[in-house]
Structure formats: structure tokens, C-alpha cells
């Protein structure tokens, strides 16, 4: 049984890995080079009667200097060198695909977490009350002797229905996880024994 569990864990980790890999592949497709993502930016301060100016061009790294980027040249031939000496050229590269991917990914994870949190704290107790009425609730509290109402919701749910074994497993795992989180919450937030 125990080895089976380990195997399961291995499997699931490989599953996660493959998801990760798929993500990487997806990412690499999204991040295919965009011509907007390269720039050579030259900032030229005021010189004699020429105003300060910013030049941006899409050139390669080795062409990223004042002579290639500043166009049209605002000064005459003999002053070009002096003018260019004061310009500061920077070659920059980014990947707008990665940025977009990261931000959207981040927002969706955040959204999922928030939804799950709302579900755990608000919806589930309500659902439970609807399903089982008042009396069973009280009985359940006495049964477990726990003052955290929502922690036992799944307990009730899973006990009252016989479900396919996989769902049961999932539920069991979820329940155990919640018990752990509750334990952690107690030690961090209430008793202040760790991480204070």
C-alpha cells in the first residue's frame, strides 16, 4: 500500500513535470521574437543650439551606436564626433510575450486561489446547511468537537454520499490538507509558537 502511494506520488510529480514542460513549450512559442522587442535607445543631451533628443531604432547590438542610430544627424560633419561622444546609447532587449504570459498566468493563479478561498469560507458552509439542515450540523459539531465550522464540511459531505473511489481519495486528501492548514494556522496565528 505504501509503495503504491509512493508510486502515485511519483506519477503525479511526473504529471506536474509534464505540465511544466508543456508550459515551457507554450512559453517559447509565445515568446517568439517580436521585432518590437529590440531597441537601441540613444539619449543625446543639448549641444550648442541643438535641442536634446532621444532616438530609438531597431538595430542589432553591434550597430547600436550613435552613428547608426541618430538619423538625421542634427549637426554638421565636423561636430558629429563631439555630438556623438555625449550621446548615451543603450541596447535593450525584452520579450513582451514572456511578460504577457507571466502576468496573465499570475493573475489566473491569484484568481483561482481567491475563488477557492471564497468557496471554502462562504459557499461551502451555506451549501452544507442547505443540504443537511440544522440538526445534523449540531450533531456533527458534537461529533468532532471542533469549533471550526467549515473544516468539517467535507467530512459530512463525504460521509453522507458514497462516491466513486477516486473522488473519495481526492476528498480524503483535501480533508487531510485542510486539517494540516488548520493545525498550522493554530500554531502560527493563535498560539504564536512558530514564525512570530
Amino acid at each position, binding site marked *: *500500500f505504501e*509503495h*503504491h*502511494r*509512493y*508510486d*502515485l*506520488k*511519483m*506519477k*503525479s*510529480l*511526473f*504529471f*506536474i513535470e509534464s505540465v*511544466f514542460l508543456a508550459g515551457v513549450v507554450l512559453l517559447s512559442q509565445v515568446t517568439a521574437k517580436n521585432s518590437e522587442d529590440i*531597441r537601441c535607445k540613444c*539619449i543625446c*543631451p*543639448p*549641444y550648442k543650439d541643438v535641442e536634446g*533628443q532621444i532616438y530609438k531604432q531597431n538595430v542589432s547590438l553591434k550597430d547600436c551606436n550613435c552613428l547608426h542610430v541618430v538619423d538625421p544627424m542634427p549637426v554638421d560633419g565636423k561636430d558629429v564626433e563631439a555630438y556623438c*561622444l*555625449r550621446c*548615451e546609447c543603450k541596447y*535593450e*532587449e525584452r*520579450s*513582451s510575450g*514572456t*511578460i504577457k504570459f*507571466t*502576468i*496573465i*498566468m*499570475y493573475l489566473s*493563479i*491569484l484568481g483561482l*486561489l*481567491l475563488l477557492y*478561498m471564497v468557496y*471554502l469560507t462562504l459557499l461551502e458552509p451555506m451549501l452544507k446547511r442547505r443540504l443537511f439542515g440544522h440538526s445534523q450540523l449540531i450533531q456533527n459539531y458534537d461529533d468532532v*468537537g471542533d469549533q471550526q465550522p467549515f473544516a468539517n464540511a467535507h467530512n459530512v459531505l463525504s460521509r453522507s454520499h458514497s462516491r466513486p473511489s*477516486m473522488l473519495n*481519495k*481526492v476528498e480524503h*486528501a483535501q480533508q*487531510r490538507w485542510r486539517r*494540516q*492548514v488548520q*493545525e*498550522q*494556522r493554530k*500554531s*502560527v*496565528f493563535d498560539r*504564536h509558537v*512558530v*514564525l*512570530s
Partner: protein
Amino acid sequence: MSDFWTRRGRARVRTLRAGGFRMREKPGCCDGGPEGLHPPSDDDDDDLVDIAGATLDFSSTDDVPPLSSGGYEEHRSRAGMNGNGPSNLMDPLEDPVPGLGTYEDFNTIDWVREKSKDRDRHREITKNSRRSTAALLHSVSDAFSGWLLMLLVGLMAGALAGGIDIAAHWLTDMKEGVCLRGFWFNREHCCWTSETTFQDRDRCAVWQTWGELITGTSEGALSYILNYLLYIVWALLFAFLAVTLVRAFAPYACGSGIPEIKTILSGFIIRGYLGKWTLITKTVTLVLAVSSGLSLGKEGPLVHVACCCANILCHLFTKYRKNEAKRREVLSAAAAVGVSVAFGAPIGGVLFSLEEVSYYFPLKTLWRSFFAALVAAFTLRSINPFGNSRLVLFYVEFHTPWHLVELLPFVLLGIFGGLWGALFIRANIAWCRIRKTTRLGRYPIVEVLAVTAVTALVAYPNSYTRMSGAELISELFNDCSLLDSSQLCGYQQPANISETGVGNSLADRPAGPGLYTALWQLALALLFKMLITVVTFGMKVPSGLFIPSMAVGAIAGRLLGVGMEQLAYYNHDWLIFRGWCTPEADCITPGLYAMVGAAACLGGVTRMTVSLVVIMFELTGGLEYIVPLMAAAMTSKWVADAFGREGIYEAHIRLNGYPFLEPKEEFEHSSLAVDVMLALLTQESMTVGEVEALVENTRYSGFPVVVSQESPRLVGFVLRRDLVISIDNARKRQDGVVSASLVVFSEHAPPQASDGPPPLRLRGIMDLSPFTVTDHTPMDITVDIFRKLGLRQCLVTHNGRLLGIITKKDILKHMAQMANRDPDSILFN
């Protein structure tokens, strides 16, 4: 049975709970039912994987054939190695009992046992590898798995760090405005291609502040007030989300994590601290916390994130999954990875792990850390989160030389850093103690919201506190070039501009009105940062402390630097300036002062020296500033040590009472190793019922086995957890095991009545080579043994007879007592 109690009654001096064992306080799990005895892999971290695993039941089960029986092999070979015990004593029908050789939550591992376990395993594999090709391949893959794991850790941590950087940057800018071109761009990337003029180079049309978006104009009081309000609202929202998510999903995700990781690396077990939910929650909430504008950084939490990655990936490899000591080697490397991606400093990361975090750091780990840190830095570099091909926002590059005379202000900065460090630690610990013990601790969410509100309210009007910590540091580190438009570079422009130097090497100039404004704003920012950081660090959101302390130092350094510059400009004929600071020369670089100040303050708070200097010089990419940095770091450490020897992490470890045996300290009291007594098991005269009663009525984490009550000569040592699991397992699976069965630890079962139930043989779970000292061993030697070998318990004998036991926790309590501290403050009780 009664015999035991009288023996216990006679226990000498004080009977301490052994081994740092802690009962779970939950009712219903300690009543000896199957719940309480559940095998450890159950509460092994958390269960996301199990959920996923259920769906993958159908996939092949034979991809790890030789390893899946590792537990049994290990188990048998251990019995054989240690005691030359014939393995036929083991019941051949008996399956390997899951969970043997594992530890309870909040317990300390035994390094010696784990290491010998690994050596045995290794020996077994080498022996087998000569037999068949498959076994040879297995041995090769086993040897390679460490490096593979490092590669994976580096990739994962680097990718996560890149994501965190991008998201935090974007969310920080979100407080001020939005990009019309695509909401996912931050301010910098929003204006990436847009046309801007030289005068307005800090703004562009597609990036609009909230006030601008609503009122239509960027000028005016209404727009300012709207911006101000929305800034506060966003900050509060982010902080609220962060603290509620932490509370709901992973309370262990709060704080910086370095003190706990330090404790874990020293052998402590906190289940779930490095689990999947902690990783997810910490990653998500770290971004929120950083962007809420609170005075905190992401560097410490990144170390925690990297360690979570390593711990999760360890599950892929049997070698690391089953051995706590080996896993800690990987975690040490992961700590290096964390700093490597936080500062873009791979070597600094490795040294940080070695100097600050790790407990056991062999050379092999050094190489692996180096490799992993390199991979992580490379991954981060290829993600390129800042668009400047650098790994950190505040990377600087200046090469202006410094003069020997400047060492004096650098040392002054070191003194400031040391004073600030000592003060900060005192204040922060006092504040955390208040939080821990008074009513304040009961309202963590309100506390976070209040601090955020104050921070946002005060920070917004001052542009140096409004920007994020990393940006502030980057601005302070930067040397002023002619093109800089920031206030800090508000010098009076020299009249003959065309003849002065070019690019970065500008001569010293007199300060202009812009710089004066910047100076008093910086002074206010310094004061504010100093105060707010004290209350921020330790709140229930992910919070690192590197960035705030560096910011404090950088502000102080920059102020001093500008002061020095002006002094030199107006008095360049003074003796100290004569000769190297002529009027046309660029002799003083305020950015360098900011850097030295940052190093000094960070050094004062964390007491790092070598790793700090290396991190800083990797940040600057120049070797010429090593001497100033060293001078500042050393001074800061000396000054801070004069006020208290502990760094902030050790102070937090002590505040929480983690069982951490500081390897850097010396134990200087003289006492003897004769103190404690506890319950005993006998070799072959106890029944299962008696053993169970003993286990139930005591809370010791291990029991010595002796020959008999009359002659307590030592046979071996049995861990409570192993005992409980084995008996429970035997009762379930083995026929004929009842309360009256004898428990036999000896090699040969004693002759017994034929009608009695068969004995339960448990020699396999007994450690036949426990460490012993005599009762006259001086305490300092004992402490050294514990510290250097990472022991968990040590038995005390007198004339070869068992006298008692000393555990790591006893040592810690004893040391606390010697230092006049409350010994009961150690570990939760």
C-alpha cells in the same frame, strides 16, 4: 510494569522530555488509534500530489523497480551491518514496515543515523552494480541523480524568480497607473517604443496615472488627490489579499523564512514548511506584499521559495526522498540558489549558504550549490525580467577610482551600519515579543492593514519612499551622468558645458536646488524607513529584510557621499584633498558611498561578512571596491557584535525557541554529563502489552534497551516512532501477536513455553550502535559531540551500566540555563 514506575520515580535530578518530542495536541489523534500511528508519508508535506496522483493511477508502475524495495533492503542491511545480526531473525514474511526510520513533526533528525543509512545504501548499490547491467545503470543513475536534481532546482527556482520579478514590477506600477497599450506592461515597458522628447523623457502618452485617466489631465490638485487615494487603496488591497491568502492556505508562508530554514538545515523537522502549498502561496503573496509598498524585500522569501522547490523535487529521487540528511544537503544548495537569483550573484549565494544558513556543508555540496546557483542565474538571465540583461534592478557599473583617504568615511558608514543593525535587532525583537505575547498578536490582519495604511499614507508624498525599495537602491547607487533627470543629480550645470568631460566621468559640481530638495527628502525617507521596517519585519506576510536594510544604508551612504563631494568641491585646497581632488577632477562618487552604506547596514543586521562583500562585488562587477566594502562590512560586524552577538536570524530563532545548536558559538561552562534518567526497555522480558503501556504513558522519543532490569547493561536504542509503528503493524498483519507476546530484541529468542504466543522480534528496528559517553565526560565535550556530529541523543553510562540519556533538547536547555535564560523557552513548551 510497576518496576518501571519505581525506576522512574527514582529518576535523578530532572526528567526531561527526550529528543524534542512533542505530542500533537489534537484530541483524537493521540489516543493510540490508527490515526495517530499513521505512517509518516501521509503527513509528508502536503497532499496536492496525492490529489493529482489519484488521477494517474493507470500509468505504468514499473519505472522504478529497483528502488521501490529500497526500504526493505536498507532495513535489512542495516541490521546486518550494525550488529552482525543474522537476518533470519527477521520474519521473512514480514513486509517492510512503512514509516520506519522517519521522524515526527517538530522533531530533530539524527544525522549520524541518516548518514550511515545512506552509506549502507550506497554500498549496497555498488555491490550490486557488479552483477548485472541493469544494476550498473541503476548505480550510474543514482550517482547522477544529485546533479540532475540540482539542474532541476536551478531551472525551477530561476523560472519562479523571473516570474516573481516581472509580476512584482508590474503590480508595483499598477498602484500608480495603467498602460493603455496592454495592461500587462509595466511603466517602463509601456513606453518601450513610444516617441518621447528629451524634456519629457520620464513620461509617455500610453502610460496614464489613475488621476489622469479619470480627470483627463495630469496636472492639478484633483488628479494628485485621486492618485494618492488610489495608491492607498491598491496598497491596502494587495496587503489584505496577501495576508488572507497566507492565513487561508499556508500560514507557514509568512515571514522571511531564513530562520526556519536555518533550523531545518540543522536537523529540525517542520512538516509542510517546504511543501507545495507553501510554495504556491508564498510565490503569489510575495508579489502582493512587495507591490503593496510595504518596507520589505523579496530576497529572503526567495530563499524559502528555492528551498520549497528543492524539497518538492527531492520527491522524484528515492535517494533524497528517504534520507533526511541527504535532503538537507540539497536544501543547503537551494539556499544558495535563492540568493543567487535574488541578487544575481551565484558565488555570493554559495558563500551565503555556507556562512549564514547551512549547518552541514561538505565539499560535495559546495560544488553542487555552485552548479545549481549557476543554472538558476542562467535561467533568470534568459528570462531577462528587467529588460536590461541584468539579474537585478540595482546593478551598477562604475569604475571611478577611490582614494585611501576615503576609507575614513567608509569606516564611518560601517559604524553607522553596525549601530543600526544592533538597534534594529533589539527593536524588532522587542516588537515581535510584544506581538507574540500581548493582544496585538490576535489581530494579524488588522495589524498588516494598519501598517500598510500608515506606510502608504506617509510614503506617497515623498518620491523616495513612494518608489519600491529596489528602485530606490538603484537610484541611489547610480552615479550622476549628464543625462540623469532625477533630482539627486540636480547639480548646478557648469557654464562651459561643452568642454567638460564626457559621459559618466563628470567633474564634481556644486549642489543645485534640486539636490538640496532631494537631500532633505532623503533624510526624511531614512527616518521613515528606519522606523517602519522595525514594525514591518515579522508581520504575517512574506517579508524579507535585505532590501529595507540596504535601502537604509544606501540613503545614509548617499547623504554622506554628497556631503563629502560638496566638502571636497568647496575645500579642495585642504590638506586631505590636496593632490588627488583637483577642481576639475571627479574625485568622489556618491554612488559608491551608497553602496558601501548598503553593505554596512546589511552586514550589521545579518552579520554576514564574506558573502556580503562577494554579493556586493558581484552586483557592481568591479573588483576595485572590495577593500571599501570589506572595511565597512568588518567595522559594521565589530560594532554590532559589541552590542549583542546575535544576528537577526539567530535572534528570531531564539525568540521562537527553535532547537538550534549554534555551531559558531563556544560553550564555556563546565558541568558534567550526568543528569537525566528515563524509562527503559529490556531485551527479552517484556510483553507487547507492557511495551505499549510504557509508550503510552511516557512521551520520550526513544528508549534504550538493556539486558535486564537488574543489570542495566546497554544493548541498543529504539526510537519511539519505530517501536509504535512496528508493534502496530505486527498486530495488524502478524498472526498471534497479542498483548501477552514477548517483545524480543536479542539475537536469539529465549526458550519459552510452547503454549504461549509467538514472540515479536524487533531487533531490526533497534540501533545497535548508539553513541555513549560516560558520566564523567565534561559538558563542553558533550556539546561538541552533539554539534559536530549532529546527534539527536546520546546515552550516558557508568561502569558500563546505563545511567541515563542526554538529548539535543537537554543540551539546549542546559545551555539556556547556563546563559541565565529561561530553559523552558526552548521549543514550544
